[in-house]
């Protein structure tokens, strides 16, 4: 069984859990207590040198970076659950394009907004509203491009759902719920896509805890 070292509400841990649900892969969540600094302890850092969650131990094979873990699990179990990464070279290239879009044209802006508005208050810190405004101003035209792309095809890489779509869910859901729903809902095709992916049973199973 895959051992998933992380914590239940962690965005990146839930991405791995989501992929496990999509692919019917059994996993055991082994909680890492960030408040106690467990992620900086030598035993943890020996496996994840950046001191970040999650990492997996798959029968002794240690892997970190949630998107890398996701890709590894998807490729290991091609015949279970949804395909999630195409094998045809052209479709695969378009998947890689979509995966890169997620990292650099979405999460790059959404994650720091979520950090300011959701994580900072939890840590007793004030959100930097100037930074939130700046990030949001950069995000808006990106989402206009998303809306255009999604007006022509069902998902980001084409007409089949891929890991690239799913990778938006953890931070996207936190963003949506932090008062930014209108940012998605005001764009009809983006809204349609968001409703689709955020209602997948695999996401509903883990969205409130890996």
């Amino acid at each position, binding site marked *: 069984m895959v051992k998933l070292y992380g914590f239940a509400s962690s965005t990146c841990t839930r991405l791995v859990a989501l992929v496990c649900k999509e692919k019917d892969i059994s996993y055991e969540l082994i909680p890492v207590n960030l408040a106690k600094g467990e992620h900086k302890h030598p035993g943890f850092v020996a496996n994840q040198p950046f001191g970040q969650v999650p990492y997996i131990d798959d029968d002794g094979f240690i892997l970190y970076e*949630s*998107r890398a873990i996701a890709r590894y699990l998807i490729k290991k179990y091609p015949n279970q659950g949804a395909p999630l990464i195409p094998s045809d070279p052209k479709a695969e*290239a378009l998947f890689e394009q979509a995966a890169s879009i997620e990292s650099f*044209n979405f999460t790059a802006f959404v994650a720091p907004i979520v950090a300011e508005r959701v994580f900072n208050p939890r840590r007793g810190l004030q959100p930097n509203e100037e930074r939130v405004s700046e990030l949001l101003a950069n995000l808006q035209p990106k989402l206009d491009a998303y809306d255009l792309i999604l007006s022509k095809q069902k998902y980001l890489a084409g007409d089949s759902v891929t890991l690239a779509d799913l990778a938006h869910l953890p931070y996207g859901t936190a963003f949506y719920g932090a008062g930014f729903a209108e940012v998605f809902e005001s764009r009809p095709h983006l809204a349609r896509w968001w409703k689709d992916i955020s209602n997948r049973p695999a996401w509903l199973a883990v969205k409130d805890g890996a």
Partner: protein
Amino acid sequence: MVLKLYGFATSTCTLRVAVVLKEKNVQFEFIPVDLTKGAHKAPEFTAYQPFGQVPYIDDNGLILYESRAICRYIAAKYASHGTPLLPTDPTAIALFEQAASTETSNYDPFVSGLAWELKFAMWFGGKTDEARAKSLQSQLSAKLDIYDLILGKQKYLAGNDITLADLFHLPYGAVLLDIGLDEFSSRPNVARWWKDISSRASWEAVKGGI
């Protein structure tokens, strides 16, 4: 028909693609997009690249954007040409993906942010946010301490063979060195690795501009 690379001669992301084309000995035609004239926001451009960013390629009618996606496509299509840049063994692939994701999350946000604050912001009439630059440098420094640990145990980021993940670091690394921000030399293993990847013929061929 030869592969067409649409970009800006000195753009970091355009150079990221160019270095891989050189490593794989792939012929290409470079078609300059004049960012200073806003060519990347013109309809003729955004019809192909909806985010209005460089580069994109036209490989016999296949349009692809996002530099890392383009690099992956070229490395896979021309697997048997030039230097192997993508592993084929599943474990090695997973460790490559871990390294590629490390570049995306634990390097790029800091180096691109610093490049913006210390160089590019001024091109667009902005100015350096000193506090932000200081914060980014401090974060980058901490990440590179980890890189130094990893690279003390293996030659390259994904193991003992060079992969795309190493090359992805070149463009922004070079920009920072060029403006006098050297976080590499003081870390012996990072310095060794940086010297190795930045002295490759492929990088020498394009680093000054296509």
